[in-house]
Protein backbone atom coordinates (compact mmCIF):
# COMPACT_ATOMS: atom_id res chain seq x y z
CA UNK A 1 0.00 0.00 0.00
CA UNK A 2 2.74 2.39 1.06
CA UNK A 3 4.91 1.56 -1.94
CA UNK A 4 2.05 1.89 -4.35
CA UNK A 5 0.72 5.25 -3.28
CA UNK A 6 3.53 7.05 -1.51
CA UNK A 7 5.14 8.89 -4.40
CA UNK A 8 1.93 10.05 -6.03
CA UNK A 9 0.54 11.30 -2.73
CA UNK A 10 3.77 13.17 -2.03
CA UNK A 11 3.68 14.67 -5.51
CA UNK A 12 0.13 15.81 -4.88
CA UNK A 13 0.99 17.27 -1.50
CA UNK A 14 4.04 19.01 -2.93
CA UNK A 15 1.98 20.62 -5.66
CA UNK A 16 -0.27 22.13 -3.02
CA UNK A 17 2.21 23.01 -0.29
CA UNK A 18 5.33 23.59 -2.38
CA UNK A 19 7.37 22.19 0.46
CA UNK A 20 9.17 18.90 -0.07
CA UNK A 21 9.81 17.97 3.55
CA UNK A 22 6.35 18.96 4.71
CA UNK A 23 4.82 16.93 1.89
CA UNK A 24 6.68 13.83 3.04
CA UNK A 25 5.63 14.45 6.65
CA UNK A 26 2.02 14.94 5.68
CA UNK A 27 1.88 11.74 3.63
CA UNK A 28 3.69 9.71 6.26
CA UNK A 29 1.28 10.93 8.92
CA UNK A 30 -1.64 9.96 6.73
CA UNK A 31 -0.24 6.45 6.35
CA UNK A 32 0.18 6.15 10.09
CA UNK A 33 -3.40 7.25 10.51
CA UNK A 34 -4.51 4.70 7.94
CA UNK A 35 -2.72 1.92 9.75
CA UNK A 36 -4.29 2.77 13.05
CA UNK A 37 -7.77 2.16 11.65
CA UNK A 38 -7.69 -1.18 9.87
CA UNK A 39 -10.62 -3.30 8.62
CA UNK A 40 -12.75 -0.30 7.81
CA UNK A 41 -12.38 -0.19 4.03
CA UNK A 42 -14.48 -2.10 1.58
CA UNK A 43 -12.09 -1.96 -1.38
CA UNK A 44 -8.70 -0.77 -2.51
CA UNK A 45 -10.41 2.07 -4.32
CA UNK A 46 -11.94 3.15 -1.01
CA UNK A 47 -8.49 3.12 0.55
CA UNK A 48 -7.08 5.21 -2.29
CA UNK A 49 -9.92 7.71 -1.98
CA UNK A 50 -9.37 7.92 1.77
CA UNK A 51 -5.63 8.51 1.32
CA UNK A 52 -6.14 11.29 -1.21
CA UNK A 53 -8.81 12.95 0.89
CA UNK A 54 -6.70 12.75 4.03
CA UNK A 55 -3.68 14.21 2.23
CA UNK A 56 -5.79 16.98 0.72
CA UNK A 57 -7.19 17.97 4.11
CA UNK A 58 -3.81 17.82 5.76
CA UNK A 59 -2.36 20.04 3.04
CA UNK A 60 -5.16 22.55 3.40
CA UNK A 61 -4.57 22.67 7.14
CA UNK A 62 -0.87 23.09 6.56
CA UNK A 63 -1.44 26.02 4.22
CA UNK A 64 -4.00 27.59 6.49
CA UNK A 65 -1.64 27.33 9.41
CA UNK A 66 1.20 28.67 7.32
CA UNK A 67 -0.78 31.63 6.04
CA UNK A 68 -2.30 32.43 9.41
CA UNK A 69 1.19 32.52 10.81
CA UNK A 70 2.03 35.06 8.17
CA UNK A 71 -0.96 37.05 9.40
CA UNK A 72 -3.31 36.62 6.47
CA UNK A 73 -7.04 37.00 7.05
CA UNK A 74 -9.27 33.92 6.97
CA UNK A 75 -11.06 34.91 3.77
CA UNK A 76 -7.77 35.40 1.99
CA UNK A 77 -6.76 31.89 2.99
CA UNK A 78 -9.78 30.38 1.20
CA UNK A 79 -9.06 32.09 -2.09
CA UNK A 80 -5.45 30.95 -2.10
CA UNK A 81 -6.52 27.37 -2.42
CA UNK A 82 -8.94 27.15 -5.34
CA UNK A 83 -10.87 23.85 -5.28
CA UNK A 84 -10.01 22.99 -8.85
CA UNK A 85 -6.34 23.56 -8.35
CA UNK A 86 -6.25 20.74 -5.86
CA UNK A 87 -8.15 18.33 -8.07
CA UNK A 88 -6.11 18.85 -11.22
CA UNK A 89 -2.99 17.83 -9.32
CA UNK A 90 -4.58 14.46 -8.67
CA UNK A 91 -5.10 13.96 -12.40
CA UNK A 92 -1.45 14.76 -12.96
CA UNK A 93 -0.31 12.52 -10.12
CA UNK A 94 -2.24 9.55 -11.46
CA UNK A 95 -1.19 10.15 -15.08
CA UNK A 96 2.48 10.52 -14.12
CA UNK A 97 2.41 7.24 -12.23
CA UNK A 98 0.94 5.47 -15.25
CA UNK A 99 3.60 6.96 -17.51
CA UNK A 100 6.33 6.03 -15.05
CA UNK A 101 5.09 2.44 -14.95
CA UNK A 102 5.23 2.31 -18.73
CA UNK A 103 8.78 3.63 -18.68
CA UNK A 104 9.85 1.01 -16.13
CA UNK A 105 8.75 -1.60 -18.64
CA UNK A 106 11.14 -0.48 -21.38
CA UNK A 107 14.26 -2.38 -22.43
CA UNK A 108 17.24 -1.57 -20.23
CA UNK A 109 19.24 0.98 -22.22
CA UNK A 110 16.16 2.79 -23.42
CA UNK A 111 14.84 2.89 -19.90
CA UNK A 112 18.04 4.28 -18.44
CA UNK A 113 18.23 7.04 -21.03
CA UNK A 114 14.65 8.01 -20.48
CA UNK A 115 14.94 7.89 -16.71
CA UNK A 116 18.00 10.09 -16.76
CA UNK A 117 16.27 12.52 -19.07
CA UNK A 118 12.87 12.51 -17.40
CA UNK A 119 13.41 11.65 -13.77
CA UNK A 120 16.83 13.17 -13.21
CA UNK A 121 16.43 16.05 -15.63
CA UNK A 122 19.73 15.35 -17.40
CA UNK A 123 20.46 17.11 -20.67
CA UNK A 124 21.54 14.95 -23.62
CA UNK A 125 25.20 15.85 -23.09
CA UNK A 126 25.05 14.79 -19.46
CA UNK A 127 23.38 11.49 -20.34
CA UNK A 128 26.03 10.80 -22.98
CA UNK A 129 28.75 11.34 -20.38
CA UNK A 130 26.98 9.30 -17.71
CA UNK A 131 26.41 6.31 -19.95
CA UNK A 132 29.59 6.63 -22.02
CA UNK A 133 27.70 6.75 -25.28
CA UNK A 134 27.50 9.32 -28.03
CA UNK A 135 24.97 12.12 -28.03
CA UNK A 136 23.50 10.67 -31.21
CA UNK A 137 22.92 7.37 -29.44
CA UNK A 138 21.19 9.25 -26.65
CA UNK A 139 18.89 10.90 -29.13
CA UNK A 140 18.16 7.63 -30.91
CA UNK A 141 17.41 5.84 -27.65
CA UNK A 142 15.09 8.63 -26.60
CA UNK A 143 13.24 8.44 -29.90
CA UNK A 144 13.00 4.69 -29.64
CA UNK A 145 11.70 4.91 -26.09
CA UNK A 146 9.07 7.42 -27.02
CA UNK A 147 8.04 5.24 -29.94
CA UNK A 148 7.88 2.13 -27.79
CA UNK A 149 5.76 3.97 -25.31
CA UNK A 150 3.86 5.28 -28.26
CA UNK A 151 3.93 8.64 -26.62
CA UNK A 152 2.81 11.49 -28.72
CA UNK A 153 4.78 14.36 -27.27
CA UNK A 154 4.61 17.84 -28.66
CA UNK A 155 6.95 20.77 -28.53
CA UNK A 156 4.32 23.33 -29.13
CA UNK A 157 1.21 23.91 -27.09
CA UNK A 158 -0.98 25.04 -29.92
CA UNK A 159 -0.92 21.60 -31.50
CA UNK A 160 -3.56 20.87 -28.86
CA UNK A 161 -6.01 22.54 -31.20
CA UNK A 162 -5.85 19.44 -33.37
CA UNK A 163 -7.48 17.49 -30.59
CA UNK A 164 -10.28 19.96 -30.35
CA UNK A 165 -11.46 19.51 -33.91
CA UNK A 166 -14.88 17.85 -34.09
CA UNK A 167 -14.87 14.20 -35.18
Amino acid at each position, binding site marked *: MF*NTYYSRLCYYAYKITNNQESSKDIVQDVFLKYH*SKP*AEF*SSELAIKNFLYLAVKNACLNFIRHDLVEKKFAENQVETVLDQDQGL*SHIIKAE*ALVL*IKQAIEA*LPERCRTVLKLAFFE*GFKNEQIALEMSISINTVKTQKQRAIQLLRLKLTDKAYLLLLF*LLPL
Partner: protein
Amino acid sequence: MMNQFEPLYTKAELIVKSLQNDLTDQERLSLNEWLAESAANQALYNDLTNEATLASELAILAKFDAQADWQKIAKQTIGEQNKTATIVDFSYRKWLSAAAILLIACLGVFQFWVSRNNRNSISKISKHPIIDIAPGGNKATLKLADGTIIILNDSVNGFQATQQNVKLVIQNGEITYQSLGQDNEIIYNTITTPRGGQYKLLLDDGTKVWLNAASSIKYPTAFSGDERIVELTGEGYFEVAHDASKPFKVLLPGIGKVDAIGTAFNINAYSDEHITKTTLVQGKVKVAFGSKTDFLIPGQQAQLFPSGQLLVLNQVDVDEVVAWKNGQFIFKQMNVENIMKQIGRWYEIEVIYNGPVSQETFSGIVSRNSHLMEVLKIMEEGGVRFKIDGKKISVY
Protein backbone atom coordinates in the same frame (compact mmCIF):
# COMPACT_ATOMS: atom_id res chain seq x y z
CA MET B 1 -17.86 12.51 -0.70
CA MET B 2 -15.32 9.88 -1.55
CA ASN B 3 -16.39 9.75 -5.17
CA GLN B 4 -15.08 13.20 -5.98
CA PHE B 5 -11.79 11.52 -6.83
CA GLU B 6 -12.88 8.74 -9.11
CA PRO B 7 -13.57 10.91 -12.17
CA LEU B 8 -10.06 12.24 -11.76
CA TYR B 9 -8.51 8.80 -11.98
CA THR B 10 -10.50 8.28 -15.18
CA LYS B 11 -9.28 11.57 -16.66
CA ALA B 12 -5.69 10.55 -15.96
CA GLU B 13 -6.20 7.24 -17.74
CA LEU B 14 -7.76 9.03 -20.71
CA ILE B 15 -4.84 11.39 -20.99
CA VAL B 16 -2.26 8.62 -20.88
CA LYS B 17 -4.22 6.64 -23.44
CA SER B 18 -4.31 9.63 -25.74
CA LEU B 19 -0.53 9.87 -25.43
CA GLN B 20 -0.32 6.27 -26.48
CA ASN B 21 -2.76 6.84 -29.29
CA ASP B 22 -5.12 4.34 -27.80
CA LEU B 23 -8.48 6.02 -27.49
CA THR B 24 -11.81 4.73 -28.68
CA ASP B 25 -14.01 7.24 -30.42
CA GLN B 26 -16.09 7.58 -27.30
CA GLU B 27 -13.01 8.18 -25.20
CA ARG B 28 -11.71 10.80 -27.58
CA LEU B 29 -15.05 12.59 -27.39
CA SER B 30 -14.88 12.46 -23.62
CA LEU B 31 -11.39 13.87 -23.60
CA ASN B 32 -12.24 16.64 -26.05
CA GLU B 33 -15.26 17.60 -23.98
CA TRP B 34 -13.08 17.87 -20.92
CA LEU B 35 -10.45 19.89 -22.78
CA ALA B 36 -13.11 22.27 -24.07
CA GLU B 37 -14.34 22.92 -20.53
CA SER B 38 -11.54 25.25 -19.52
CA ALA B 39 -8.15 26.68 -20.32
CA ALA B 40 -6.92 25.11 -17.10
CA ASN B 41 -7.74 21.66 -18.44
CA GLN B 42 -5.89 22.40 -21.64
CA ALA B 43 -2.91 23.63 -19.68
CA LEU B 44 -2.88 20.46 -17.61
CA TYR B 45 -3.01 18.35 -20.75
CA ASN B 46 -0.22 20.38 -22.24
CA ASP B 47 1.96 19.86 -19.18
CA LEU B 48 1.64 16.13 -19.63
CA THR B 49 2.12 16.00 -23.38
CA ASN B 50 4.93 18.47 -23.88
CA GLU B 51 8.27 16.74 -23.56
CA ALA B 52 9.92 19.45 -21.51
CA THR B 53 7.15 19.93 -18.97
CA LEU B 54 6.47 16.19 -18.70
CA ALA B 55 10.12 15.66 -17.92
CA SER B 56 10.07 18.21 -15.13
CA GLU B 57 6.87 16.79 -13.66
CA LEU B 58 8.31 13.28 -13.71
CA ALA B 59 11.40 14.65 -12.01
CA ILE B 60 9.20 15.96 -9.20
CA LEU B 61 7.53 12.57 -8.82
CA ALA B 62 10.98 10.99 -8.69
CA LYS B 63 11.92 13.10 -5.68
CA PHE B 64 9.67 10.97 -3.50
CA ASP B 65 11.05 7.50 -3.20
CA ALA B 66 9.01 5.05 -1.16
CA GLN B 67 11.96 2.71 -0.57
CA ALA B 68 14.20 5.45 0.76
CA ASP B 69 11.61 6.98 3.03
CA TRP B 70 10.39 3.60 4.29
CA GLN B 71 13.07 3.44 6.98
CA LYS B 72 11.83 6.58 8.65
CA ILE B 73 8.22 5.54 8.78
CA ALA B 74 9.09 1.99 9.88
CA LYS B 75 10.85 3.28 12.98
CA GLN B 76 7.92 5.50 13.85
CA THR B 77 5.41 2.69 13.53
CA ILE B 78 7.08 0.55 16.20
CA GLY B 79 6.31 3.34 18.62
CA GLU B 80 2.72 3.58 17.34
CA GLN B 81 2.12 -0.16 17.62
CA ASN B 82 2.25 -0.14 21.38
CA LYS B 83 -0.29 2.65 21.44
CA THR B 84 -2.76 1.34 18.88
CA ALA B 85 -2.99 -2.10 20.47
CA THR B 86 -4.89 -0.61 23.36
CA ILE B 87 -6.78 2.12 21.54
CA VAL B 88 -9.91 0.59 20.09
CA ASP B 89 -11.75 3.18 18.10
CA PHE B 90 -14.75 1.08 17.11
CA SER B 91 -18.29 1.62 18.20
CA TYR B 92 -19.14 -2.05 18.82
CA ARG B 93 -16.69 -2.00 21.70
CA LYS B 94 -19.49 -1.46 24.18
CA TRP B 95 -20.92 -4.98 23.92
CA LEU B 96 -17.70 -6.91 23.82
CA SER B 97 -17.36 -9.21 26.78
CA ALA B 98 -14.20 -9.30 28.84
CA ALA B 99 -13.14 -12.56 27.18
CA ALA B 100 -13.22 -11.07 23.69
CA ILE B 101 -9.95 -11.01 21.80
CA LEU B 102 -9.25 -7.70 20.14
CA LEU B 103 -7.06 -8.71 17.27
CA ILE B 104 -8.11 -6.04 14.87
CA ALA B 105 -5.86 -3.21 16.00
CA CYS B 106 -2.82 -5.45 16.11
CA LEU B 107 -3.75 -7.03 12.79
CA GLY B 108 -3.72 -3.64 11.14
CA VAL B 109 -0.14 -2.99 12.11
CA PHE B 110 0.83 -6.59 11.38
CA GLN B 111 -0.52 -6.15 7.87
CA PHE B 112 1.71 -3.15 7.47
CA TRP B 113 4.80 -5.18 8.24
CA VAL B 114 4.01 -8.06 5.96
CA SER B 115 2.56 -6.03 3.12
CA ARG B 116 3.86 -7.08 -0.23
CA ASN B 117 5.93 -4.74 -2.33
CA ASN B 118 3.04 -3.46 -4.33
CA ARG B 119 4.82 -1.98 -7.26
CA ASN B 120 2.01 -2.58 -9.74
CA SER B 121 4.48 -2.44 -12.59
CA ILE B 122 3.40 -3.41 -16.06
CA SER B 123 5.70 -6.22 -17.15
CA LYS B 124 4.93 -5.86 -20.84
CA ILE B 125 4.11 -2.71 -22.67
CA SER B 126 0.40 -3.16 -23.19
CA LYS B 127 -2.07 -1.03 -25.06
CA HIS B 128 -4.24 -0.53 -21.99
CA PRO B 129 -2.68 0.93 -18.85
CA ILE B 130 -5.33 -1.02 -16.91
CA ILE B 131 -4.70 -4.74 -17.26
CA ASP B 132 -7.50 -6.83 -15.86
CA ILE B 133 -10.23 -6.86 -13.29
CA ALA B 134 -9.81 -8.89 -10.15
CA PRO B 135 -12.58 -11.16 -8.93
CA GLY B 136 -14.66 -10.57 -5.83
CA GLY B 137 -13.93 -12.06 -2.46
CA ASN B 138 -15.13 -12.45 1.10
CA LYS B 139 -16.58 -9.05 1.77
CA ALA B 140 -19.66 -8.04 3.68
CA THR B 141 -20.99 -5.75 6.36
CA LEU B 142 -22.51 -7.03 9.57
CA LYS B 143 -25.19 -4.92 11.18
CA LEU B 144 -25.93 -5.63 14.82
CA ALA B 145 -29.25 -5.20 16.58
CA ASP B 146 -28.23 -1.82 17.93
CA GLY B 147 -27.38 -0.57 14.45
CA THR B 148 -23.60 -0.84 14.77
CA ILE B 149 -21.98 -1.80 11.51
CA ILE B 150 -18.86 -3.94 11.25
CA ILE B 151 -17.02 -4.35 7.99
CA LEU B 152 -16.09 -7.97 7.24
CA ASN B 153 -13.23 -8.86 4.97
CA ASP B 154 -10.23 -11.14 4.96
CA SER B 155 -8.29 -9.03 7.39
CA VAL B 156 -10.94 -9.69 10.06
CA ASN B 157 -9.90 -13.19 10.97
CA GLY B 158 -10.02 -15.11 14.21
CA PHE B 159 -12.25 -12.49 15.76
CA GLN B 160 -14.57 -13.47 18.61
CA ALA B 161 -17.11 -11.58 20.62
CA THR B 162 -20.28 -12.09 22.61
CA GLN B 163 -23.63 -10.29 22.37
CA GLN B 164 -26.23 -11.08 24.99
CA ASN B 165 -25.32 -14.71 25.62
CA VAL B 166 -24.51 -15.52 22.01
CA LYS B 167 -20.93 -16.07 20.91
CA LEU B 168 -19.85 -14.89 17.50
CA VAL B 169 -16.71 -16.03 15.68
CA ILE B 170 -15.42 -14.62 12.41
CA GLN B 171 -12.95 -16.77 10.53
CA ASN B 172 -12.05 -17.37 6.88
CA GLY B 173 -14.98 -15.59 5.35
CA GLU B 174 -17.45 -17.26 7.68
CA ILE B 175 -19.32 -16.02 10.71
CA THR B 176 -20.53 -18.53 13.31
CA TYR B 177 -23.15 -18.04 15.99
CA GLN B 178 -23.39 -20.12 19.12
CA SER B 179 -25.92 -19.68 21.86
CA LEU B 180 -24.40 -19.90 25.32
CA GLY B 181 -27.62 -20.29 27.25
CA GLN B 182 -31.33 -19.70 27.26
CA ASP B 183 -32.38 -16.29 26.15
CA ASN B 184 -35.92 -15.27 25.48
CA GLU B 185 -35.24 -12.06 23.69
CA ILE B 186 -34.61 -12.44 19.98
CA ILE B 187 -32.10 -10.03 18.54
CA TYR B 188 -31.45 -9.72 14.82
CA ASN B 189 -28.27 -9.23 12.89
CA THR B 190 -28.04 -8.51 9.17
CA ILE B 191 -25.23 -9.42 6.81
CA THR B 192 -25.08 -7.52 3.57
CA THR B 193 -22.69 -8.28 0.73
CA PRO B 194 -21.68 -5.65 -1.77
CA ARG B 195 -21.19 -6.32 -5.45
CA GLY B 196 -17.98 -8.34 -5.59
CA GLY B 197 -18.62 -9.77 -2.15
CA GLN B 198 -19.75 -13.06 -0.67
CA TYR B 199 -19.96 -14.48 2.84
CA LYS B 200 -20.82 -17.62 4.74
CA LEU B 201 -22.88 -17.87 7.86
CA LEU B 202 -23.39 -20.65 10.39
CA LEU B 203 -26.49 -20.04 12.45
CA ASP B 204 -27.08 -21.04 16.02
CA ASP B 205 -29.15 -24.10 15.02
CA GLY B 206 -26.48 -25.45 12.69
CA THR B 207 -28.02 -24.11 9.49
CA LYS B 208 -25.42 -23.02 6.94
CA VAL B 209 -26.03 -20.09 4.65
CA TRP B 210 -23.90 -18.98 1.70
CA LEU B 211 -24.60 -15.44 0.64
CA ASN B 212 -23.79 -14.33 -2.92
CA ALA B 213 -22.83 -10.82 -4.08
CA ALA B 214 -25.24 -7.91 -3.69
CA SER B 215 -27.40 -9.78 -1.24
CA SER B 216 -28.46 -9.60 2.36
CA ILE B 217 -29.80 -11.82 5.09
CA LYS B 218 -31.46 -10.80 8.32
CA TYR B 219 -31.51 -13.46 11.01
CA PRO B 220 -31.78 -13.94 14.78
CA THR B 221 -28.52 -14.49 16.64
CA ALA B 222 -30.19 -17.41 18.37
CA PHE B 223 -33.42 -19.14 17.53
CA SER B 224 -36.17 -19.42 20.10
CA GLY B 225 -39.89 -19.93 19.84
CA ASP B 226 -41.41 -22.50 17.48
CA GLU B 227 -40.24 -21.14 14.16
CA ARG B 228 -36.91 -20.25 12.62
CA ILE B 229 -37.36 -17.18 10.43
CA VAL B 230 -34.80 -15.35 8.29
CA GLU B 231 -35.15 -12.70 5.59
CA LEU B 232 -33.27 -12.78 2.30
CA THR B 233 -32.65 -10.40 -0.58
CA GLY B 234 -30.47 -11.33 -3.56
CA GLU B 235 -29.14 -14.86 -3.63
CA GLY B 236 -28.48 -17.40 -0.88
CA TYR B 237 -27.85 -21.12 -0.61
CA PHE B 238 -29.20 -22.80 2.49
CA GLU B 239 -28.39 -26.09 4.18
CA VAL B 240 -31.02 -26.15 6.85
CA ALA B 241 -30.35 -28.15 10.00
CA HIS B 242 -33.09 -30.67 10.57
CA ASP B 243 -35.58 -29.78 13.29
CA ALA B 244 -39.12 -30.97 12.69
CA SER B 245 -40.40 -29.05 15.70
CA LYS B 246 -39.20 -25.75 14.35
CA PRO B 247 -39.91 -25.14 10.68
CA PHE B 248 -37.34 -22.95 8.92
CA LYS B 249 -38.75 -20.11 6.84
CA VAL B 250 -36.98 -17.80 4.44
CA LEU B 251 -38.93 -14.61 3.88
CA LEU B 252 -38.38 -12.81 0.60
CA PRO B 253 -39.64 -9.26 1.19
CA GLY B 254 -42.09 -8.23 -1.49
CA ILE B 255 -42.07 -11.67 -3.05
CA GLY B 256 -43.10 -14.50 -0.77
CA LYS B 257 -41.48 -17.16 1.35
CA VAL B 258 -39.90 -20.57 1.29
CA ASP B 259 -40.56 -23.08 4.08
CA ALA B 260 -38.12 -25.88 4.75
CA ILE B 261 -37.56 -28.79 7.12
CA GLY B 262 -34.04 -30.24 6.94
CA THR B 263 -33.19 -29.41 3.37
CA ALA B 264 -30.70 -27.84 0.97
CA PHE B 265 -31.89 -25.29 -1.52
CA ASN B 266 -30.89 -22.20 -3.48
CA ILE B 267 -32.94 -19.04 -3.72
CA ASN B 268 -32.23 -16.47 -6.40
CA ALA B 269 -34.28 -13.38 -5.70
CA TYR B 270 -32.25 -10.61 -7.34
CA SER B 271 -34.51 -7.74 -8.27
CA ASP B 272 -32.74 -7.33 -11.62
CA GLU B 273 -33.36 -10.95 -12.55
CA HIS B 274 -37.14 -10.49 -12.88
CA ILE B 275 -37.84 -14.13 -12.11
CA THR B 276 -37.36 -15.39 -8.55
CA LYS B 277 -36.03 -18.92 -8.62
CA THR B 278 -36.01 -21.42 -5.80
CA THR B 279 -34.16 -24.64 -6.56
CA LEU B 280 -34.33 -27.66 -4.27
CA VAL B 281 -31.19 -29.74 -3.99
CA GLN B 282 -32.20 -32.09 -1.23
CA GLY B 283 -35.13 -32.67 1.12
CA LYS B 284 -38.40 -30.85 0.76
CA VAL B 285 -39.56 -27.25 0.60
CA LYS B 286 -42.80 -25.39 0.24
CA VAL B 287 -42.82 -22.16 -1.73
CA ALA B 288 -45.47 -19.52 -1.18
CA PHE B 289 -45.69 -16.56 -3.51
CA GLY B 290 -48.74 -14.39 -3.06
CA SER B 291 -51.71 -16.72 -3.01
CA LYS B 292 -49.89 -19.54 -4.79
CA THR B 293 -48.11 -22.30 -2.99
CA ASP B 294 -46.37 -25.40 -4.18
CA PHE B 295 -44.14 -28.15 -2.93
CA LEU B 296 -40.83 -29.06 -4.52
CA ILE B 297 -38.93 -32.30 -4.72
CA PRO B 298 -35.14 -32.41 -5.31
CA GLY B 299 -34.15 -31.24 -8.77
CA GLN B 300 -37.20 -29.01 -9.16
CA GLN B 301 -37.16 -25.26 -9.44
CA ALA B 302 -40.03 -22.94 -8.65
CA GLN B 303 -40.07 -19.84 -10.81
CA LEU B 304 -42.10 -16.82 -9.84
CA PHE B 305 -42.73 -14.39 -12.67
CA PRO B 306 -43.41 -10.66 -12.23
CA SER B 307 -46.92 -11.36 -13.53
CA GLY B 308 -47.52 -13.51 -10.45
CA GLN B 309 -47.41 -16.74 -12.37
CA LEU B 310 -45.75 -19.63 -10.57
CA LEU B 311 -44.11 -22.31 -12.63
CA VAL B 312 -42.36 -25.46 -11.43
CA LEU B 313 -39.63 -26.90 -13.61
CA ASN B 314 -38.51 -30.48 -13.31
CA GLN B 315 -34.94 -31.65 -13.59
CA VAL B 316 -33.12 -28.32 -13.67
CA ASP B 317 -29.34 -28.39 -13.75
CA VAL B 318 -28.63 -28.08 -10.06
CA ASP B 319 -24.87 -27.84 -10.63
CA GLU B 320 -25.34 -24.75 -12.73
CA VAL B 321 -27.58 -23.14 -10.09
CA VAL B 322 -25.33 -23.75 -7.10
CA ALA B 323 -21.99 -23.38 -8.87
CA TRP B 324 -21.45 -19.98 -7.22
CA LYS B 325 -21.40 -21.39 -3.72
CA ASN B 326 -18.77 -23.89 -4.83
CA GLY B 327 -16.57 -21.09 -6.11
CA GLN B 328 -17.39 -21.52 -9.77
CA PHE B 329 -19.30 -20.09 -12.67
CA ILE B 330 -21.00 -22.84 -14.64
CA PHE B 331 -22.80 -21.79 -17.78
CA LYS B 332 -24.78 -24.31 -19.76
CA GLN B 333 -26.09 -22.76 -22.91
CA MET B 334 -26.55 -19.40 -21.31
CA ASN B 335 -26.91 -16.23 -23.34
CA VAL B 336 -24.65 -13.21 -23.09
CA GLU B 337 -27.06 -11.04 -21.13
CA ASN B 338 -27.57 -13.58 -18.36
CA ILE B 339 -23.88 -14.36 -18.14
CA MET B 340 -23.06 -10.68 -17.88
CA LYS B 341 -25.56 -10.18 -15.06
CA GLN B 342 -23.70 -12.72 -12.94
CA ILE B 343 -20.32 -11.36 -13.94
CA GLY B 344 -21.33 -7.78 -13.29
CA ARG B 345 -22.16 -8.57 -9.68
CA TRP B 346 -18.99 -10.49 -8.93
CA TYR B 347 -16.50 -8.26 -10.75
CA GLU B 348 -18.29 -5.05 -9.82
CA ILE B 349 -18.52 -3.81 -13.36
CA GLU B 350 -21.22 -1.93 -15.18
CA VAL B 351 -22.26 -3.59 -18.42
CA ILE B 352 -23.08 -1.45 -21.46
CA TYR B 353 -24.49 -2.92 -24.63
CA ASN B 354 -23.48 -1.30 -27.89
CA GLY B 355 -26.19 -2.28 -30.27
CA PRO B 356 -27.85 -5.70 -30.52
CA VAL B 357 -25.81 -8.53 -29.07
CA SER B 358 -25.40 -12.04 -30.41
CA GLN B 359 -28.12 -14.36 -29.18
CA GLU B 360 -25.66 -17.21 -29.16
CA THR B 361 -25.45 -19.29 -26.02
CA PHE B 362 -22.30 -20.32 -24.24
CA SER B 363 -21.17 -23.14 -22.00
CA GLY B 364 -18.19 -23.34 -19.73
CA ILE B 365 -16.84 -23.78 -16.22
CA VAL B 366 -14.62 -21.10 -14.74
CA SER B 367 -13.35 -20.54 -11.21
CA ARG B 368 -14.75 -17.47 -9.47
CA ASN B 369 -11.21 -16.68 -8.47
CA SER B 370 -10.27 -15.98 -12.07
CA HIS B 371 -9.62 -12.55 -13.37
CA LEU B 372 -12.34 -11.17 -15.59
CA MET B 373 -10.49 -11.92 -18.82
CA GLU B 374 -10.65 -15.66 -18.17
CA VAL B 375 -14.41 -15.57 -17.94
CA LEU B 376 -14.85 -13.33 -20.97
CA LYS B 377 -12.75 -15.71 -23.05
CA ILE B 378 -15.68 -18.10 -23.18
CA MET B 379 -17.73 -15.56 -25.06
CA GLU B 380 -14.87 -14.04 -27.03
CA GLU B 381 -14.32 -17.38 -28.67
CA GLY B 382 -17.87 -17.14 -29.90
CA GLY B 383 -17.25 -13.76 -31.50
CA VAL B 384 -18.47 -11.43 -28.75
CA ARG B 385 -16.24 -8.38 -28.26
CA PHE B 386 -15.55 -6.52 -25.04
CA LYS B 387 -13.95 -3.23 -24.25
CA ILE B 388 -13.02 -2.53 -20.65
CA ASP B 389 -12.76 1.02 -19.42
CA GLY B 390 -12.19 1.24 -15.71
CA LYS B 391 -15.25 -0.32 -14.14
CA LYS B 392 -17.33 -0.25 -17.30
CA ILE B 393 -17.45 -2.97 -19.86
CA SER B 394 -18.93 -2.46 -23.31
CA VAL B 395 -20.27 -5.46 -25.16
CA TYR B 396 -20.24 -5.60 -28.95
